[in-house]
């Protein structure tokens, strides 16, 4: 697989649709242990990107990712805006460096995006955040690409990793984000940010698999 702007656009459209479909799964989680605005914020971001598909079409993949980052930065607000924007900026630099021609290139660029997100949020795995999904997924992406698995095979492994990462947040104590103020009361709930990342990652994988991209 190589990362083309067309694939980025179809993936962001798939993300937008999946966010809407999974509203009942995402929104109550943030209302339980956050401040209830996560769903609205990410929906606003996804809508904004869908609205700029025509504008993105003429750009290279790294330019498109950067443009998406700036749009997310000005449309989402909250913590999610800078975090997702940092991810896309990091991934854009990664693609610019390696060209995004192969699965391993894309995996490395994805990991670079996660790295930027970690720098911005100053977080780590185990704090009941989106990193509990993104970091294991980045590992899985790179490992399965190294082993020369097929694109469909990589997607299947990423899906499983995202599910596992999300499930791990249930028993974690929140020490980052607004849920941190809850202390022990956050235990027993899935993290909303981890859930929305799982939804988005699976939507992208499904889009790739459905299109039978090699």
């Amino acid at each position, binding site marked *: 697989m190589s990362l083309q702007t067309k694939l980025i656009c179809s993936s962001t459209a798939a993300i937008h649709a999946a966010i809407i479909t999974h509203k009942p799964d995402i*929104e109550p989680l943030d*209302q339980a*242990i*956050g*401040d*209830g*605005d996560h769903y*609205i*914020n990410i929906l*606003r971001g996804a809508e904004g990107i869908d609205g700029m598909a025509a504008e993105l079409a003429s750009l290279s993949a790294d330019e498109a990712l950067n443009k998406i980052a700036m749009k997310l*930065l*000005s*449309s*989402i*607000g*909250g*913590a*999610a*805006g*800078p*975090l997702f*924007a940092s991810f896309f900026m990091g991934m854009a630099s990664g693609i610019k460096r390696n060209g995004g021609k192969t699965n391993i290139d894309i995996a490395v660029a994805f990991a670079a995006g996660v790295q930027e997100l970690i720098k*911005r*949020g*100053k*977080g780590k795995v185990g*704090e009941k955040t989106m990193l509990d999904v993104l970091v294991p997924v980045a590992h899985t992406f790179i490992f399965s690409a190294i082993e020369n698995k097929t694109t469909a095979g990589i997607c299947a492994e990423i899906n499983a990793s995202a599910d596992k990462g999300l499930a791990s947040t249930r028993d974690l104590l929140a*020490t*980052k*984000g*607004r*849920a*941190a*103020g*809850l*202390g022990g*009361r956050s235990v027993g709930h899935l993290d909303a940010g981890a859930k929305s990342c799982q939804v988005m990652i699976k939507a992208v994988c499904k889009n790739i698999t459905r299109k039978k991209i090699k």
Partner: protein
Amino acid sequence: MKKFVNSIDSMLTESLSGFEKAHPDLVSLHLKPNYLTRKNKAKNKVAVISGGGAGHEPLHAGFIGKGMLDAACPGQVFTSPTPDQMIAAAEAVHMGKGVLFIVKNYAGDVMNFEMAGEMLSVENSTVLTSDDCAVINSTFTDGRRGVAGTVIVEKCVGSIAETGADLASCKALGDKINAQTASIGVAFTSCTVPAAGKPTFDIGESEIEMGIGIHGEPGRKRETMRKADAMIKDMIDAILTDLDDKTKGAEVLLLVNGLGATPLMELYLIYNVAEKLLREQGMTVARSLVGNYTTAIDMSGASITVCVLDDEVKQHWDSPVHTVALRKGI
């Protein structure tokens, strides 16, 4: 949900437009990106800018004006503003002496202001407010939340900026006040975020949430409703434990803040009890503020803030100010 709404999407800008029309002598509204500035730009001083999610009115736009803020950036309800807003506001109001951002300590606000600060070509610095002592576990990497004490920081930093003080001095005063201010809130009912359409949390008729956050984030614990004296004593105890030896024999500012749906009659009752408790602990309540200054939309409840005073803080608290929500001496 019963609210004055035409559409959720237009609610914020409709409200901001009304704010500008109601106070044309004090503020100007700029849309896309959204920010508000003083009607008349100040001269030759550090520009003081604050911002945060909407829903805490009159914070922050209500404090724009001589002696306080130069600009404010409102985000969506309970959602941080975005860097493009802060950059546009800073470029509009800076006077060549730098920009000081006053930011309540929430991950979203911190990151958005941080990115704005990095992208801005004007010299800038930030005071983070974290006066809420309800969240006491210091291992929480997010630290404490910024709540009503932010008003005191904005007032005093605004005052020192008017004197022509440099950016470092303005920041130093803000940081100092934040370190000697503690707040705690209690909620009787939840707020309802308009876009969500229903209360953020469930709370029984005889329950209270002690240590509530200003977005409806749960606090320390769910308790049973008691007499005002008992609840206020617990709040004052939490504040004094937090401020520790700073309060011994001190003069303090006592701020009783309504969270949106609690009447002034009750806020003054709280003041009456809190003032007595502080006096019994050897403090002198030398300055006061009672009203709705840092709200949580339509939440019923209140917060108490104690700020330890010294001559510098008193001087800047007492200086003239002319804003929508706070006016004295002008």
